[in-house]
């Protein structure tokens, strides 16, 4: 323990590696746990297009263009893309579950999504995924084992089903105290809800100086 109080409040963070908006949300989502007395719970879901939901061409084009505008606004790299739909997305989800088990999901999720959306990493190949895992501080041997772990796959399926049970369709979605917030551009509303719930951490003297 590092001396911080145990948190009881949680923010569920439903995330897809194939969603550019999930990538854009990632850094701010995981940082919520630093500014608020909440635990951010990563819940990776299978991409919409792999769940039988239609994604019209115009929606796909608009998403890329709009995500680029938003990435520019957020000063995040975006554009050197390798679409991970299929094996790549599933492999990232499985490694992410392993990363949760060893407490490095933040590092892995941010590294992998940056790799996919800004570095054209082909995460369906070991050559593409391995350096991402290692940069996230994960053992490649353990990650390779995770790719064939049926228990981790069951967790991915359960999180995907949980999003549907919440009556939601896309990502990123945040759930706090039963309330849903859809979109990387709704994090500010989530922050208001966390503040209203009295969960904002007081500024440390050093931070306020």
């Amino acid at each position: 323990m590092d001396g911080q109080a145990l948190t009881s409040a949680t923010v569920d963070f439903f995330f897809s590696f194939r969603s550019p908006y999930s990538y854009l949300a990632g850094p701010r989502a995981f940082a919520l746990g630093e500014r608020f007395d909440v635990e951010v719970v990563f819940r990776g879901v299978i991409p919409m297009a792999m769940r039988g939901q239609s994604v019209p061409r115009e929606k796909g084009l608009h998403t890329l263009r709009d995500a680029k505008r938003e990435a520019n606004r957020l000063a995040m790299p975006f554009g050197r893309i390798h679409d991970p739909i299929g094996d790549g997305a599933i492999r990232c989800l499985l490694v992410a579950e392993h990363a949760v088990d060893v407490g490095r999901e933040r590092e892995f999720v941010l590294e992998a999504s940056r790799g996919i959306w800004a570095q054209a990493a082909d995460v369906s190949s070991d050559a593409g995924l391995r350096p991402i895992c290692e940069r996230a501080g994960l053992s490649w041997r353990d990650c390779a084992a995770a790719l064939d772990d049926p228990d981790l796959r069951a967790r991915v399926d359960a999180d995907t089903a949980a999003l549907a049970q919440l009556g939601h369709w896309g990502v990123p979605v945040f759930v706090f105290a039963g309330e849903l917030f859809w979109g990387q551009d709704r994090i500010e509303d989530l922050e208001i809800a966390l503040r209203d719930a009295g969960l904002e951490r007081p500024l440390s003297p050093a931070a306020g100086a």
Partner: protein
Amino acid sequence: MPTSPADTITRRVAPRAVVALSQVGWPSRLGAATRRKLGRRGRVELFFAFDDPCSAIAVIDLAARVEGRDVQLLLKPVVGRGIADDPAVDLKRRYAIDDARRLGRRAGLVLSRHEPLAAGDTAFLAEWAASAPQGPALTRFCVQTLLVLWFETDGPVDKAAHAAAWRDHFGEETPVAGGAECVHRNERLMRRRGPYDTPAAWVHGQWFFAHDRLAQIAARLDDLGWTVRP
């Protein structure tokens, strides 16, 4: 595992090209400068639906945001919207209530409705507005009507009250024919521009989901040279 050329194009080349092309700004800036030289105003085409609470947020905000710029806000009401055969359409309409409540709070507005409106409940408003000439009277009517619909009332839509508001703004009776075709024209234009749902703002070659990107729409106008006049 080696990837096929087709796979490489689909996964890497095409998305990268779409992003790169979206960053080419000189044609729209040149077009905007040319419009100004010809004495023409900038345009924001706003596709919206009266049964959509997020459209209410967008129309009310953008009407104020284009004030002071040499920009015309063209209001294009539609009735048909959304992705064809979308299984989540009802969930989206219900979620829009929660979302608009939070977006309204950002703007100091309190949503008064708790349930979605059906498209048919407000189609007459779209037909009236679509058949009216663009201009301040139409903007004021749409702003007032959306305020009343979403921030002042709950329950059934009061057609007589909206007709009275129409007479106040336009000094004449509500249109009796032709509105449906005008709405269909707006829907066709929306599809041609690219948006598949409302509220969507088309700003000289780029479109935005307007309720999500209000500040970015203003930034786009700034970038094109249509800044707020001192």
